[in-house]
């Protein structure tokens, strides 16, 4: 069946002929796999031996295409990464689309293809989903919700309870690219900078770490909304420990740093889509860093800081000249300031 429509209409969500044309003409050919192709009400998955991980996420990014990525790629990688930093490899994924009537079919096709490509790269079949259409003006073009099911690595045992004083904080690479790329792509700020989102799958980086040093990896999380600062604050709160980071160790691309300086934003608060924080036992920290740096995409991984016990659990940044400050969680959205 061919999907020949030029624009999304309410009929595409009504369950009739137009819906069938959309599903069988666009989604199914792009995502094709045996479970999806049966077009039944649920995908049947044979449970493998081991522990399963399951995660859900919704993607409402605006604009839907931005330098370095798009909502479709994000919808797959975001869920793949939530599994990856939970120590899991994805087995299957579902995708739900909320489309705004009037959206161009071309924009949808573009995102579906981006999703299919990202899913192939991560080795995860998209086995089911749903489509709803809302009236024009009721949504920002399109929203995508994904659910991922994964198999937890046999070496992975993660959680705040495993984090101990003395553990080291590792960061997988340069921060702030995604948040700044989106902020500049919104075109509300008339600033031009060549900043690309860092959206990418973290499966390989995380997987290699678990393969080599699994039991020594105590905790892991991707630093998405709220940035590195928020992730570390959540960890400090959950463990009741203090985290001290060396400010000069934080890898930041010059153009991101420049844009943050200009807009008065703290790069530690800016969102990422392809970076994680890992807490690793002190004696294995160098080995872990070595594994990350030898894996494609992990070349700029760094030792960010360490964890200790203190009367107040909080995140502290130490400057190269000995000044210290509290790194707080992000409050609301990062807002550019001028005066």
């Amino acid at each position, binding site marked *: 069946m061919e999907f020949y429509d030029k624009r999304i209409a309410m009929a595409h969500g009504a369950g009739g002929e137009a819906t069938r044309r959309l599903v069988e003409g666009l989604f199914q050919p792009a995502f094709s796999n045996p479970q999806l192709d049966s077009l039944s009400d649920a995908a049947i998955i044979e449970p493998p031996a081991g522990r399963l991980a399951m995660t859900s996420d919704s993607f409402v990014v605006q604009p839907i295409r931005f330098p370095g990525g798009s909502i479709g790629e994000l919808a797959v990688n975001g869920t793949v990464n939530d599994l990856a930093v939970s120590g899991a490899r994805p087995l299957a994924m579902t995708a739900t689309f909320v489309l705004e009537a009037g959206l161009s079919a071309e924009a949808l096709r573009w995102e579906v293809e981006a999703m299919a490509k990202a899913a192939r790269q991560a080795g995860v079949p998209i086995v089911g989903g749903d489509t709803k259409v809302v009236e024009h003006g009721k949504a920002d073009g399109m929203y995508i919700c994904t659910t991922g099911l994964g198999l937890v690595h046999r070496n992975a045992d993660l959680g705040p309870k495993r984090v101990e004083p003395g553990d080291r904080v590792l960061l997988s690479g340069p921060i702030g690219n995604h948040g700044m790329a989106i902020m500049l792509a919104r075109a509300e700020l008339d600033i031009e900078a060549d900043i690309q989102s860092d959206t990418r799958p973290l499966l390989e980086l995380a997987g290699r770490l678990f393969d080599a040093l699994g039991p020594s990896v105590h905790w892991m999380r991707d630093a998405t909304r709220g940035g590195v600062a928020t992730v570390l604050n959540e960890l400090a709160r959950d463990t009741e420990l203090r985290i001290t980071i060396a400010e000069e160790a934080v890898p930041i691309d010059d153009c991101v740093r420049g844009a943050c300086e200009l807009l008065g934003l703290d790069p530690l608060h800016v969102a990422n889509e392809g970076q994680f924080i890992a807490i690793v036992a002190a004696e294995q920290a160098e080995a872990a860093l070595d594994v990350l740096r030898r894996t494609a995409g992990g070349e700029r991984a760094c030792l960010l800081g360490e964890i200790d016990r203190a009367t107040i659990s909080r995140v502290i940044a130490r400057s190269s000249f000995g000044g210290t400050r*509290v790194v707080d969680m992000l409050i*609301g959205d990062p*807002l550019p300031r001028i005066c």
Partner: protein
Amino acid sequence: MLFVDEFRNPELIQRAVDEIHALADPKREYRVMEVCGGHTHAIFRFGLKGLLPPNVELIHGPGCPVCVLPMGRIDDGLELAGDPNVIFTAFGDMMRVPGSKGSPLESKARGADVRIVYSPLDALKIAQQNPDRQVVFFAIGFETTAPSTALTLLRARGLSVKNFAVFSNHVTIIPAIRAILESPDMRLDAFIGPGHVSTVIGCRPYEFIVRNYRCPIAVSGFEPLDILQSLVMVLRQLRDGVAKVENQYNRVVPWEGNLAALRAMAEVFEVRPYFEWRGLGFITQSALRIREAFAPWDAEQTMSVPGICVTDPKAAQCGEVLKGVLKPHECKLFGKECTPEHPIGALMVSSEGACAAHFKYAVT
């Protein structure tokens, strides 16, 4: 990064810190006010306070324009934003500042068309792109931002853009410094002068501080080394028993100021007889209104601005904190009812406000 990294050089910073320690006489206290919110922010962000001798105290002054804006002006702006035909534009700094019925962001959540701009020229562009709607720019700031508002109004007139108006809340720094100096509970030893404002007004307007109050001042940049070097400058003056205006930020600040910017301001704005400052009360000749010649672009003349007056919450001690009489954490509400997430006073809202900086960055 050029013009950043060299001002964060650990060796140079250590040298400046050593000099401050050597200059600070342990037998006396030093109370130095940094007027500008940008300095407050930088002092906390780089943990500079912890590098100083305990008898050198930094007092955070009234230089954050968001912090000194009375609640009524925000309410006035949001009344305008409530008109479905209005696109309300403001800097990001304003978005979380609470009026008595909520902030611009909350207004946006309720359906008002509120947009962040990085320059008033962007607001003018929005007006050109939306000829059927009225665009209001909520202008705030000291002399740092007033020239760009002035240039935007000159351009609006030049292009005959009819659906654009400015709601001017621009204030001027010198009357605020004078009010601080004349406050009876004030005792200051020196000033770190505002860098951005001084790029426009230059250094000469500060001469009354040294002449009338014998108080040293160093106009300062915003990097750690700038601020520490400025401290060295004022401590040297105090050691030598002199008081003069020094320009630490001379890579950016011309002594006579930016004449083109001052001309644009003078063409578009005139001084208001009086204006209310949050925490400081009414200060005469301390703010700018739009001249009659630009009346068609003045929201206060063409639109129905209600002129709301709101008393600040009684328990909030923003005024005392602004004048440096109280430290942020000494306010009754600090960190309890008043936090960056639920601010009661504006000092807790702006990232440059003394209370927000204290709350976010202070290591206690």
